[in-house]
């Protein structure tokens, strides 16, 4: 009986999580277009619903009803597999992500995470590394030169930036003496990690931008020179899968920044519910992502590699050494 209740609880949590992650890209696309518009002195979507609020719904319906086109020379199996491979890992990662400690519903304490893995951080990095397969297969299977170029760039970029990203969080693990994300947040209840780890946060955030393939590191889908990069040949619902995956990764990097460096659900000064504090911080980081996108140009490919290997990697190493000497 107890086992059944526990299983049911997990099933409900997973269903809620999937629903949230699938629906969240809708407001995020609206927000991105609004921010883009206002930064360029335009208004963004205005005609569908109040201030264009229903625009993402209209776009979604459009994508669902569009022809799902597969190029004649494409590898059909890989072509169909790639969007699912790109979509699944960002969803799986959220199994290990905590959104808060506990809430009490009907006199029962319910934890705000699916599972508290003791190697959660390792799990996150391992699974998010798989996301690159979707991008590579998508570009390769389409049999288009733009898509192949885009996926080749992505391959190199993801591998280069995962290393500094992994090193950057080692400082956090050293401070918390744990890889569990819940323990890492608990260790920050007095002072957030950003105070001890400014270099770590800088490296993590820049590498996160590159992992999420957002401007200034969006070489995989550089509109100007590659059409749309790896998803040039995708249309309809498969294209929507790639878009959802992109927004979920943006959310993931924001959530990880908050958990690892900005105290998770610990608030400062203003006493708000922990979940609200968490949501506010994540929203701020998502805004920063969009703010970056409409401010910066794109890096050249050799610059991208130089930043990854010659700047971020030494910085993250230095961060580990400094943290090791100063705090242990």
């Amino acid at each position, binding site marked *: 009986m107890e086992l059944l209740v526990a299983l049911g609880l997990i099933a409900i949590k997973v269903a809620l999580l999937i629903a949230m992650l699938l629906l969240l890209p809708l407001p995020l696309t609206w927000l991105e277009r609004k*921010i883009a*518009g*206002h*930064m*360029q*002195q*335009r*208004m963004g979507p*205005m*005609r569908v619903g109040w201030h264009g609020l229903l625009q993402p719904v209209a776009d979604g319906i459009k994508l669902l009803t569009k022809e799902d086109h597969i190029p004649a020379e494409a590898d059909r199996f890989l072509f169909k597999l790639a969007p699912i491979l790109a979509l699944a890992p960002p969803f799986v990662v959220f199994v290990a992500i905590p959104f808060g400690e506990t809430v009490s519903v009907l006199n029962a304490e319910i934890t705000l995470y699916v599972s508290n893995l003791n190697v959660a951080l390792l799990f996150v990095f391992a699974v998010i590394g798989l996301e690159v397969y979707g991008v590579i297969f998508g570009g390769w299977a389409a049999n288009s030169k733009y898509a192949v170029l885009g996926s080749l760039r992505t391959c190199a970029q993801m591998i280069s930036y995962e290393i500094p990203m992994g090193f950057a969080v080692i400082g956090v693990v050293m401070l918390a003496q744990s890889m569990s994300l819940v323990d890492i947040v608990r260790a920050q209840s007095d002072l957030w990690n950003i105070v001890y780890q400014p270099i770590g946060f800088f490296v993590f955030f820049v590498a996160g931008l590159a992992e999420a393939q957002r401007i200034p590191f969006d070489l995989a889908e550089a509109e100007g020179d590659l059409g749309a990069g790896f998803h040039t040949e995708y249309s309809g619902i498969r294209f929507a899968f790639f878009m959802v995956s992109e927004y979920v990764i943006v959310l993931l990097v924001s959530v990880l920044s908050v958990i690892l460096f900005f105290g998770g659900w610990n608030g400062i000064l203003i006493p708000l519910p922990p979940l609200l504090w968490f949501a506010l911080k994540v929203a701020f980081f998502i805004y920063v992502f969009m*703010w970056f996108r*409409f*401010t*910066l140009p794109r890096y050249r490919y050799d610059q991208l590699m130089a930043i990854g290997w010659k700047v971020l990697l030494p910085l993250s190493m230095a961060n580990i050494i400094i943290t090791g000497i100063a705090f242990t």
Partner: protein
Amino acid sequence: MSRVVDRAGTWIGWALFADLASAFTLTFGYMFSKPVTMQYPDKEKWLPYSRYRGHHFLKRDEEGEIKCVACELCARICPCDCIEVVPYEDENGNRHPAKFEIDTARCLFCGLCEDACPADAIALGQQYEFSSFSSRDLVIGRDDLLDKPGKAMTGGGVVAARLNTDEDVLVETSEPHGYNWWRNIRRT
């Protein structure tokens, strides 16, 4: 000495991402500035300047008689040959057009007919919304041309408007004067 200070300042700025910071403050400032979008069919509409060359119109004199004397100079000077005039003589011996047709699908709105007209009878007015589903509907006859709106008296403004799609698609304006669109342009 000052050069050393300048170079040190450059390096400090480089290390602290001064250029990035100024870029972000600029875009952040723009985010809260007023949009310059004119919400054309829904809420606002542009009033053309008086020199604007829109849809042609034919003028009447003080007695309400058509000013045109059917000299066909406009048809002769028209670079795309879109004006067709057939003259007739009324009982007083005055020449007037029996038929005056402009094919606005071919017209390039150069305004040469207006310049060539010796009787100041034809001009290009302020109307700019005359799209059609059929190119045949774009051939405008004499009586329609007489009814078209004339030159704008005041112009260069944005006025409140409303999109009306009840029977015909119409953008209705409610006020004669609007605000100057250029007031929202940000100059830095």
